[in-house]
């Protein structure tokens, strides 16, 4: 028994023990520091959205003395946030539908069929997907197709940017599905497309979720496309609405601005916290293989 005690004492030499504790403390302090740098501004924004204009100047660091819920009512009304949320929702869901439908079908063909030019097509996409689009011809194209100032135009503009990455994600996923499944469905009399719809798609939840999150977050946060393509107030999505509101009232009513920013941010952060694994996988997919 004393030998066993001696053995454990020998293993945990005081020097090594202390060193490990110091390293752990060091690690935690750096991580806590950066967590605070990241989280505090967002937390501060939410607190500031309950302050009065006077408090924003006199009480920078403290809690709001008497929460000004009125800020949220003002933000909702003055910035027409209801309409903006609706527009962002329509465009984001529309973009998800377009990207998931078109890219899953194309990704399946690239994964399972061999046809001429398939490699060439994929290479063209790899080399052009990151290229900055010249905005003048892009804008003129939308004007000529009468797609400016419309949900459809905005959806297509956003979807076209995401389609290549989505195709690569679907292709990688479908490659991992055993071919027997497709063969079995075809023997049962299914056409190739029916086999894809009824057998392959139902087990493709992970790929669909990844692409959906990637597209939804991108579309929800998209600012440049609506700036370029949307003219009328009624069609403005959330991002553009906030920017316009900021330009109109920013210098005077910062507390209302913070309420606007909070309304735009809190829902997506809540969803993110609950689905964080999926969000992180979705938003970094394409950069990390497999």
């Amino acid at each position, binding site marked *: 028994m004393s030998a066993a005690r001696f053995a454990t004492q020998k293993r945990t030499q005081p020097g090594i023990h202390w060193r490990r504790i110091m390293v752990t403390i060091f690690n*935690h302090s*750096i*991580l806590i520091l*950066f967590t605070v*740098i*990241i989280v505090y*501004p*967002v937390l501060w924004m939410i607190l500031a959205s309950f302050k009065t204009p006077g408090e*924003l*100047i006199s009480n*920078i*660091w403290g809690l709001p003395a008497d929460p000004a819920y009125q800020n949220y009512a003002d933000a909702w009304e003055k910035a027409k946030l209801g309409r903006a949320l609706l527009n962002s929702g329509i465009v984001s869901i529309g973009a998800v539908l377009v990207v998931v*439908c*078109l*890219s899953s*079908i*194309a990704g*399946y*063909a690239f994964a399972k*069929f061999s*046809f001429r030019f398939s490699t060439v*097509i994929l290479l063209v996409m790899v080399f*052009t997907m990151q*290229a*900055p*689009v*010249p*905005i*003048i*011809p*892009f804008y*003129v*194209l939308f004007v000529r197709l009468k797609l400016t100032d419309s949900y459809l135009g905005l959806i*297509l503009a956003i*979807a*076209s*940017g995401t*389609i290549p990455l989505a195709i690569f994600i679907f292709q990688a996923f479908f490659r991992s599905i055993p071919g027997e499944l497709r063969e079995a469905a075809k023997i049962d009399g299914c056409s190739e497309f029916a086999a894809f719809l009824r057998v392959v798609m139902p087990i493709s939840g992970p790929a669909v979720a990844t692409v959906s999150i990637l597209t939804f*977050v991108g579309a*929800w*946060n998209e*600012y*440049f496309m609506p700036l370029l393509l949307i003219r009328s107030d009624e069609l403005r999505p959330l*991002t553009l609405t*906030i*920017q316009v509101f*900021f330009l109109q009232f*920013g210098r005077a009513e910062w507390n209302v*601005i913070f309420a606007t*920013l909070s309304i*735009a*941010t809190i829902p997506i*952060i809540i969803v*993110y*916290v609950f689905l964080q694994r999926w*969000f992180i996988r979705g*938003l*970094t997919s394409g*950069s*990390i293989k497999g």
Partner: protein
Amino acid sequence: MPVTSRPLSSPAKGLARRISKLAPYLWVLPALTVYGIFKLYPLVSGLQMSLLRWDGIEEPRYIGLRNFEKILSDPMTGTVLMNNVHYAVGTVVGKIVLSLLLAILLHQALKGRTFYRTSLFMPVVMSFVVVGVLWSWLFNPQFGLINSFLRGLGLEFLVQDWLGDAAVALNSLILVDIWKWYGFHMVIFLAGLQSIPDELYEAARIDGASVWQQFRHVTLPMLQPVMIVNVTISVMGAFNVFDIPFIMTAGGPANATNVMALHIYIRGFKFYRFGFSAALSYVLLVIVTLVAAIQLRLMTSGDNTD
């Protein structure tokens, strides 16, 4: 006469085969049509527009390469390009160093790893508009959080007009960009670290390698693939950056934060010089392509000398 089990006569079978050969194209057609029209077509059709003097309203006039000549002789081009290079160096170095450091810390067996990772990744899901507007206030010289914090610590000499001072503004935007994105690069580095086999570290330790030597000779070489991904994404992001400078400074003060994408937008949609703006887009496209090619060359050639 042999009984054939063929259900179709041979010409019909030939037709069926031809159709089944065409079938894959039908599968990829819808996606490629959208990509072709909205991404590839503007890349090509803009070439012709870059040869025009055109305000978008009146009849365009063909002027050959005059727009490109003007770009080369315009002193603005150099200013904007240098700003963009400055922006790229600042954001890329900042993002890579910070995200690698934090990924290494998160890779240790630590309590609260998930909490840290979730928090550090959070700005990635936020909109640039929200981030930009929020930081314009945090940078406010009188009442902003940053200066208030510095005054509280007695660091008065660091207090400045973060967005209003031409010497500082671009670096302030770089800070915001790093804040928004380093969590993204951190997660990619983390995935890379997790794929390094433990045996390599054990072997290094047996050989008596110090922690720094392990980092230098095991971690860094093994991270090369994810390093290429991270550097490429952040360089591309830096040369495409628009939202942050447009929302926070609109390129000012005195063009101190004007970058290529913003310059292209302002020439096109504030001054209605469509042809000039289109030509600028191709200058940017060539620069981005060159930078990507050089960088891929450098980063993959390092592989061969090892």
